[in-house]
């Protein structure tokens, strides 16, 4: 087991190195939510009520893009390129490989949330998070949920060329409906129901409570339950349908 741990660490370091060497991945998974934050934050400057909503929305979106989007891209790319198949033929333990891959995604999420918290405090009139514990719990559960869904979703993507279309077909509508329902109290009932049933809106609720309003874990247990259920569903699909190699043409 210490061996598996050491190999997982090596895999993690390799994943970090590869991440920063790929400028487009670094941009889309990393810089994009931050640019959103900067742009919208500047536009809403002075409107504290709006800023209070914006920051947790961007934080939720960051969790989704650093895990769901990034992993779906990565897994499809590595699968279609034959990298996964090659790794499968080596003595690298599966747990070490996925540990390294997952830790890489978690690092990106942690970095982003840190930047968002710091920016919220420095530029957007939001203090330090009021509930650190709630923030950590929601980020961790959110990461597990969206990472699992990203790996599971990769199974549905037939080739690398169509990855962007598939991922955005999920990512953009989920972000749009979740932002809309979170931000507007006048959203139609059925739209609200859909958004509440998806994992992003509950995550934003939880993050908002932890970062802005001061509502702790206790007042968002239902939100946590929705995210956790999606996470279990995602893990089940991710493991069950996992394919190490491209479908034979």
């Amino acid at each position, binding site marked *: 087991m210490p061996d598996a741990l050491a190999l997982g660490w090596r895999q993690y370091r390799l994943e970090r190195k590869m991440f920063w060497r790929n400028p487009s991945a670094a941009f889309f998974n990393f810089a994009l939510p931050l640019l959103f934050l900067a742009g919208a934050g500047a536009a809403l400057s002075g409107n504290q009520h709006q800023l209070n909503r914006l920051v947790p929305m961007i934080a939720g979106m960051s969790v989704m893009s650093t895990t769901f989007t990034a992993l779906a891209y990565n897994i499809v790319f*590595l699968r279609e390129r034959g*990298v996964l198949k090659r790794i499968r*033929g080596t*003595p*690298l333990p599966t747990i070490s490989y996925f540990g390294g891959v997952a830790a890489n995604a978690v690092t990106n999420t942690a970095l982003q949330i840190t930047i968002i918290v710091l920016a919220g405090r420095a530029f957007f009139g939001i203090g330090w998070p009021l509930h650190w514990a709630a923030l950590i719990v929601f980020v961790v559960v959110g990461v597990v949920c969206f990472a699992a869904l990203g790996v599971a979703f990769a199974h549905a993507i037939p080739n690398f060329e169509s990855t962007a279309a598939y991922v955005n077909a999920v990512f953009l509508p989920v972000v749009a409906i979740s932002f809309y329902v979170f931000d507007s109290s006048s959203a139609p009932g059925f739209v609200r129901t859909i958004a509440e049933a998806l994992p992003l809106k509950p995550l934003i609720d939880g993050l908002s409570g932890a970062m802005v309003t001061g509502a702790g874990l206790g007042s968002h247990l239902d939100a946590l339950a929705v995210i956790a259920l999606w996470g279990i569903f995602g893990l089940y699909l991710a493991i069950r349908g996992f394919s190490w190699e491209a479908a034979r043409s």
Partner: protein
Amino acid sequence: MRDLHKRYGDYEAVRGIDISVQRGEVFGLLGPNGAGKTTTVEILEGYRTRTSGEVSVLGQDPAKRSIELRRRIGIVLQSGGIYSHITPREALRHWASFYPHPRDVEEVLALSGLQEKADERSRTLSGGQLRRLDFALALVGDPELIFLDEPTTGFDPEARRAAWETVRSLQELGKTILLTTHYLEEAQALADRVAIVKDGRVLAIGPPRELGVGAAHYRVAYRDRDGELVERETDDPTGLLHELTGEALAEGRRLEELSVGRPTLEDVYLELTADA
């Protein structure tokens, strides 16, 4: 392996293959595309599970995918990719860390002829250089048994010779090698023994030289007095040539386009794969 079968739905890709490869041997699986070579090798590598039959690789069942077994084998896939932004040296160092007794990374870089590209991103490497990296990654763990699936497909002749040299040097180190190929000369050049496979069955098995000795031992071709190209098969080339040259000298003719050949593996292969 004994009586190996693999079925995909209604299609039976492997229909009863019996092969036993000795330690230190270079064994070739030779056959046309779709013969079941890759399926067979991927069962041995642990990528696929068999439908039926017995398989033992270094004394273990590959379907169990034990880490211990994977430490002792090296795999060159027909097409295996690598991270775009990794350099060969980094990849080899990373791969070496998977194995208990890896070979020296610099030595493997030299052996595979990648020193000059050792610090370039893999996406800048040519197809031939990437193939050398495939070899290098399969060798860096110092495996006892190496699987090479179509190792030189798409190579130019020079690159192919270089790959053959690598295989021979592995053989000298006492490694066991199982390679698949649809190039007859490759099987002839490398393999101690060859199994000719078609439609999931073994048609013939033996050293390439012996497989070449079929019904016809020698093949003599020439143009006769009417200018027709004649090809004759014989067990006794000396006698036939004596007869032919004698006639030609007597008639003051040249034996245009005279050639004497041993049947190549290709002849055997064509003979065997032509549906009897």
